[in-house]
């Protein structure tokens, strides 16, 4: 054992030095070669390097949780925290760097990670009788404990039918947003720009850690969107809610969305994506209902609706305007 001694030239010091170097900016070619050679020399080198980077990421996470200035003592000319440090305030605040012993802690009764691939929509029956539908290309983590039933949507979207159990709140978190269910059907969708909570039935309380203003309670046919540009809450027509949640029935419904938007949504569920090559065509209103995963039917219908044609290319199906207009 090395005990508590800090050696200047041991594996850990070298690993930390490289982690710091990488964080400062792009490595030069020579540096990258030296790093690769060092990493290849011994599996412990790789392990120590990964660990050093993980520690650095974790420090960022904890720093982002602290009230501004809390961690800073005696640095002259303090500046505001950079936005990137402030964005990381996820709702999984309980994930700790170090464990403390809680003998009467939240013992995990049921936990796991569920993923879906392109074109796959999964129904997951949860142990409490609730049902989760996981949308295509999505990742969710299930953590059912003694105090609450928690689902973390890491990627994509999920829809829930929640069994009533007042003693164990059902909490769904995605990015900065946590939705606590008060008995209901609702969905959470996480995209790069924003997180949207849509309620079909019942009521859901939404807490957004990234914004102040306290929790918001959503009722049926309401939507809450958390975005970098600000939060918004809106009422939706019930037909619109049904449309947005239709993927659960493995159907996609379009009633006047732009064709380009529709194509992107269809492509979420199929390995053969559909592209609208013409910008004007992409803005046209489109109506139709399709089975999830059937990109081909969508392409044919869209081409027929706009007098275009479907061209199969290696990257997917392209819808183009017909070449009947003389080009030269």
């Amino acid at each position, binding site marked *: 054992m090395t005990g*508590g001694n800090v050696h200047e030239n041991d594996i850990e010091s070298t690993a930390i030095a490289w982690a710091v170097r990488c964080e400062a900016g792009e490595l030069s070619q020579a540096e990258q070669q030296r790093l690769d050679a060092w990493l290849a020399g011994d599996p412990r080198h790789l392990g120590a390097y*990964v660990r050093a980077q993980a520690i650095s990421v974790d420090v960022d996470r904890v720093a982002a949780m602290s009230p501004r200035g809390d961690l800073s003592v005696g640095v002259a000319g303090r500046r505001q925290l950079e936005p990137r440090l402030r964005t990381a305030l996820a709702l999984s605040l309980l994930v700790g760097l170090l464990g403390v*012993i809680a003998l009467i802690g939240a013992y995990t009764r049921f936990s796991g990670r569920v993923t879906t691939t392109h074109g796959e929509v999964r129904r997951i029956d949860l142990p409490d009788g609730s049902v989760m539908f996981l949308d295509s290309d999505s990742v969710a983590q299930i953590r059912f404990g003694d105090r609450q039933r928690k689902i973390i949507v890491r990627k994509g979207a999920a829809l829930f039918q929640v069994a009533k159990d007042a003693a164990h709140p059902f909490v769904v978190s995605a990015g900065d947003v946590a939705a606590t269910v008060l008995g209901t059907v609702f969905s959470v969708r996480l995209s790069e720009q924003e997180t949207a909570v849509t309620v079909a039935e019942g009521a859901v309380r939404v807490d957004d850690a990234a914004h102040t203003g306290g929790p918001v309670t959503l009722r049926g046919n309401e939507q809450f969107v958390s975005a970098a540009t600000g939060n918004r809450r809106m009422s939706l027509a019930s037909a619109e809610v049904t449309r947005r949640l239709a993927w659960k029935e493995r159907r996609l419904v379009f009633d006047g969305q732009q064709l380009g938007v529709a194509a992107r949504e269809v492509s979420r569920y199929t390995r053969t994506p559909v592209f609208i090559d013409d910008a004007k065509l992409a803005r046209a209103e489109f109506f139709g209902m399709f089975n999830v995963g059937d990109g081909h039917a969508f392409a044919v219908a869209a081409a027929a609706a706009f007098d275009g044609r479907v061209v199969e290319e290696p990257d997917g199906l392209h819808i183009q305007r017909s070449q009947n207009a003389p080009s030269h």
Partner: protein
Amino acid sequence: MDHKNRVRWFAREVLPHEVDLRLWLSRRSRAGLPCDVDDIIQETYARLWTVDADAILNPRAYMFVTARRILGEVIRRAQVVQIEFAVDFEDLDVLEDAEAGLEGRLSARQEVERLRRIVATLPTKCRQAFQLKKLEGLSQRETAERMGVAESTVEKHLAKAFRIVSEAIKAAANDKSEVVAWYDWRQRARKRH
């Protein structure tokens, strides 16, 4: 997953369990384990890095099982195994340890407080670099300018700060061992009934 997301996955799913794994390993080590806990931890991280994170349902259990496998290899390599330890090794219910309610987690406030305490112990220059870069979010160049030193000096200070954070994780495992001894005793007492 790209490199950055995999590092995040490690920070989120692996690092929080390191204290408990160290504790588990150090208990074996007191029973005559012929190797260094740091070596096994590093080797464990390396092996976890090579697997697809999405395929791991329970990272904590996976981490413990991986460490146990490495420990087994080390023992076989060492050839000389104390009989007492060999028996103990057969007896290890690593999953039970991995699942045990020991993984109490710190609240956000406790985590911030813990980091604040570590920052307070850093040497002045080292602390200044760490605060400017990691807490104030300045770039390395800006940090160097603010401190009036070369960027390479900032790197040295940062590396030292990280080393101290890392040592704090190790120290936490040592601090915890006494409480755990009590917890083990209670567990055994419960099993006897």
